[in-house]
């Protein structure tokens, strides 16, 4: 058979251009002749190849045209590859859901952490230093007020505690047997009424002197129930305590008196303040205004603040400030008899006995 004629038949067969009779005839031929069968297969594959080649060529041409056209219309440009921000936008578009979820989780986490911090961290008030006076929250106040009412009804019908909100609580100690007490200024700041408590006895007191710079205040008990103390067991030390010297304190972080001991860790206070000292001692809100004593029973300072960022770093106002305050007060005739003890009488006692003597002179201060 003529090659060209055969090829034509194959092509017409592949294109489905044969009529039924022709097609049956050709298929029979194909069946009986493996060479022709092979030719059909080859031709089919090759024509496909050719067609694909043509399409690719056409598409390449179209793409080139498109490229030139877009370039002309400035829709693409060699300079316009700054897609850095575009990448960020893409990133944002793609992940905004994820980011939103992550952000809310982060938000919730942050909130819970700060909530947890609020719960577990020491009470916040000013900067890195925390006053050791006890700020009393509203809940406690209400509870106290209720307790007071109950007390009034049941036990002490004439309690001195006013029915207003308690602002803060701290510690104070006698510096003169006639009812003069030293404490921190921040304990009594803004208070309208002061009640000092010792061993269950409440006494009304008032502020008679303040020294804001040194965070010092002198109170006077003005209460008919008050009986003067003839002799104070401790003295006020005039010289500075030495580094490493053992110290102890008494105070009211709770409603009962609490003893703690430590040592002098620095001769100056926060930010090198030479009017105070640094102690390593355990102290809590409520300890503010408490006496810091050396092992012989001499007062060397008044416990005032602690470092929020460090553990057991506590600052105390130097006792010399009390002396200065008293000298200042004596200029006023009203206080000319103010007498501050200079000698300790508990020098050679063991600590337990010292405390027994001391605790009658250390008062809780409640500021209203």
């Amino acid at each position, binding site marked *: 058979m003529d090659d060209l004629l055969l090829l034509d038949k194959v092509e017409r067969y592949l294109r489905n251009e044969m009529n039924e009779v022709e097609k049956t005839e050709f298929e029979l031929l194909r069946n009986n002749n493996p060479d022709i069968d092979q030719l059909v297969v080859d031709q089919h594959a090759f024509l496909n190849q*050719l067609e694909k080649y*043509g399409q690719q*060529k056409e598409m*390449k041409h179209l793409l080139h045209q498109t490229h030139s056209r*877009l370039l002309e219309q400035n829709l*693409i440009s060699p300079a316009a590859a700054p897609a*850095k921000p*575009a*990448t960020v936008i893409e990133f944002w578009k*793609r992940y905004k859901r994820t980011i939103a979820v992550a952000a809310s989780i982060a938000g919730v986490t942050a909130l819970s952490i700060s909530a947890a911090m609020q719960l577990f961290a020491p009470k916040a008030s000013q900067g890195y230093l925390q006053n050791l006076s006890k700020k009393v929250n509203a809940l406690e106040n209400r509870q106290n007020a209720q307790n007071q009412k109950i007390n009034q009804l049941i036990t002490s019908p004439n309690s001195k505690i006013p029915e207003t909100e308690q602002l803060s609580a701290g510690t104070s100690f006698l510096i003169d047997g006639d009812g003069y007490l030293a404490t921190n200024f921040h304990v009594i700041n803004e208070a309208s009424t002061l009640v000092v408590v010792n061993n269950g006895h409440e006494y009304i007191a008032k502020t008679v002197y303040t020294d804001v710079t040194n965070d010092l205040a002198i109170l006077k008990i003005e209460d008919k129930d008050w009986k003067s103390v003839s002799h104070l067991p401790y003295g006020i030390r005039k010289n500075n305590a030495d580094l490493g010297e053992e110290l102890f304190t008494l105070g009211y972080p709770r409603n009962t008196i609490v003893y703690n001991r430590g040592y002098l860790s620095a001769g100056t206070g926060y930010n090198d303040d030479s009017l105070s000292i640094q102690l390593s001692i355990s102290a809590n809100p409520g300890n503010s205004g408490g006496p810091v004593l050396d092992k012989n029973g001499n007062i060397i300072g008044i416990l005032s603040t602690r470092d929020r960022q460090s553990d057991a770093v506590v600052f105390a106002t130097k006792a010399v400030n009390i002396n200065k305050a008293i000298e200042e007060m004596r200029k006023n005739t009203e206080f000319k008899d103010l007498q501050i003890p200079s000698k300790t009488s508990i020098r050679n006692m063991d600590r337990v006995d010292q405390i027994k003597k001391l605790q009658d002179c250390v008062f809780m201060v409640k500021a209203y």
Partner: protein
Amino acid sequence: MKEYSKERKLLQGLALNDSRDIDTIYRENFGLVQTFITQNNGTFDDARDVFQEAMLVLYEKSKDPEFSLTCQIKTYLYSICRRLWLKRLQQQNRYSHPVEGFEDLVPVEEEIEAKEKLDNDFDTMENAMRNLGEPCKSLLEAFYIQKKQMVDIADEFGYTNADNAKNQKYKCLMRLKKLFFAQYSK
């Protein structure tokens, strides 16, 4: 779903050589590839070449009735371009760790392999066509590629009738076949 059907429509248009759809695909995806390539030791022209190669892969896929894109066109094109370009850099020993954004990637190994075969076939056919010479080349292109009618071809090429043109065409085709397969047997 709207996005999905829009992309399917674009692919259908691409398969039919619709220039509007080609424009859209080109415009919406070239920038990303351009950024990637120019940030990785390439030029604007490199980006053009690589992007058009990827478009050809997508074009072949779009004609396949079995094919359905399982990701965005953007992701698909970007993945292919990235792979092609990194391969090219490697061949030129200019490869370094790629600088890129946060684009999604899909595996395109099969596409890259298929593309190599396609390129190879294309080059072989182009060689064969070139060696075939005129008027055989144009005659075959007119009939097999441009799908012109034999009568018109006869008229265009100056044959006295369609049968003569047809006979000539078969002769040309047989020569082309020989030239084509000769390259494989080398």
